């Protein structure tokens, strides 16, 4: 999943002023959109009960955290991210986007939060091998790990 959207009504009011650049309308319905292909991509995250926008992965060589925006569930479970002390986060979303196709998300995706040597946060979206359905729908071999939902 390379992008997602969350309806403005699901975003805490305190975050509305910081969201103007992300604001889009889908047939008149306002929503915030997040894409990994932005210069400084971010994700909406709920961590320790708090809603925040945090950087989506790492696109630079400067930080000592993995490049990219996704963490494979198999790698996480094999302990290959253990050195970063990952913490689980919830990525709330109404719609996900992959290869230009929007699909429905029941409530949220799963992600992990890690910090670099300077204490800067990075969020990676968890992925798993795509189901046959997702692979045909989105033409992609990995799919997001969603909460209480499997496409």
């Amino acid at each position, binding site marked *: 999943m390379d992008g997602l959207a969350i309806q403005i009504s699901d975003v805490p009011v305190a975050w509305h002023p910081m969201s103007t650049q992300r604001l889009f309308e889908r047939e008149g319905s306002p929503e915030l959109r997040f894409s990994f292909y932005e210069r400084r991509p971010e994700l909406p995250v709920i961590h320790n009960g708090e809603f925040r926008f945090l950087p989506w992965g790492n696109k630079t060589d400067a930080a000592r955290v993995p490049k990219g925006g996704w963490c494979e569930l198999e790698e996480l479970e094999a302990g290959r991210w253990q050195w970063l002390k990952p913490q689980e986060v919830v990525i709330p979303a109404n*719609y996900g986007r992959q290869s230009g196709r*929007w*699909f429905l998300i029941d409530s949220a995706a799963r992600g992990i939060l890690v910090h670099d040597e300077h204490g800067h946060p990075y969020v990676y979206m968890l992925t798993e091998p795509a189901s*046959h*359905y*997702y692979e045909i*729908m989105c033409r992609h071999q990995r799919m997001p790990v969603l909460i209480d939902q499997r496409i």
Partner: protein
Amino acid sequence: MHEHVFGHVDADCFYVSAERVRHSCLRGIPCGVLSNQGACVIAKSYELKAKGVTTAMPIWDAVPLCPDAVFAKRDFRWYEVLSRRMLDVLRERSPAVEYYSIDEMFFNATGWGNEDARRLQETILNVVGVPVSIGIAPTRTLAKLASDVHKPFGYFVAATEAERRQLIDGQPITEVTGIARRSARKLAKYGITTCDQFAAAYPPLIRKLLTVKGEQLLYELRGEPCIPIATKRATNKALARGGSLGGATNDPERVVGWVFRNAERLVEALDHHMVYCEKLTLSLRLKNKGGLSKRATLPKATANFRTIVNTASRLLDYCWPPFLRDQRVEYMHVIAERLQPRSCWQRGLFGSQPPNERIAAVKQAINDKIGRFALRTAATLPLVETYADDTNDYDVCDIYGKSCF
């Protein structure tokens, strides 16, 4: 007032409306529900339809027409829940209801007027959450036409002759269920292109062109009821299971896997309807060669899995012989015909019950307890992705009791 008055309730873009019941974020935006394989649009919202997206269009053609469209995975278990809620609402209000299809119902609407139709619409929206269109008229065909042409969320009561004329005048004949393109072409040769022209036509001509079924439609459009409400489902003439293979394939193990899967599902359907079949047809569609089918007569009327799957496998060799094995199969149906009720069937003169009848009973008992397809034939093992997705365990044809598909 007419002696018989028919009502027809039709849910507006039902699968999409059903998704909107549990996902309010889909309301007002262009959205579609995708087919079993995630490739084709099987239901579209009116917003998506306005962008030119049609039913059965592949997602890769739909997205360029409407890049903001949101797609949802189909869930027939949920659609059945809402469908049966609609049915319950109707049964509380009418003495005779026909469960026509998952999103359409006919009912006895004797004495109903505009206010009753409006109130029913409101009740279904409040209780079920789904918008519906309603037609009330002196015949089934007129009632269905009335709800169809007043979509979305409309209603029309054709209680008087003037209202019947208003409903049919200038209406394209293809709006009538039962008159598809081929029939319309036949009628067009005689200058019949609208419902009023059809209703005014000479009945023997229509019978000649469209058989007695077409003639019935003519009388129905004139306001003379010919087709009653079927509160009980008519006995099946045939039962079929099958569909897309989830991508064309010429892998023999996968094709055989689909024969077994469809045969297993067919036997379930035969058991559900308490019938045996005497004939079996295997129908295939090859990617570049079109449709092929072959029928066999079974040694005796049966619902025995082993007999049915062995016959279907033999038919596969006829339909897809070795010299065609480079051709990819994309659709398959296994069809049981000449059905006989188990309470009264012609037994064979020789032999007794096949030896694996007990195995089938044990298998059924295990699956009833653990889940459908928990125990299944090993030949289906190549279909990993189909069985990995539990929404494939329940399709629209698994919703029993409907009089139509």
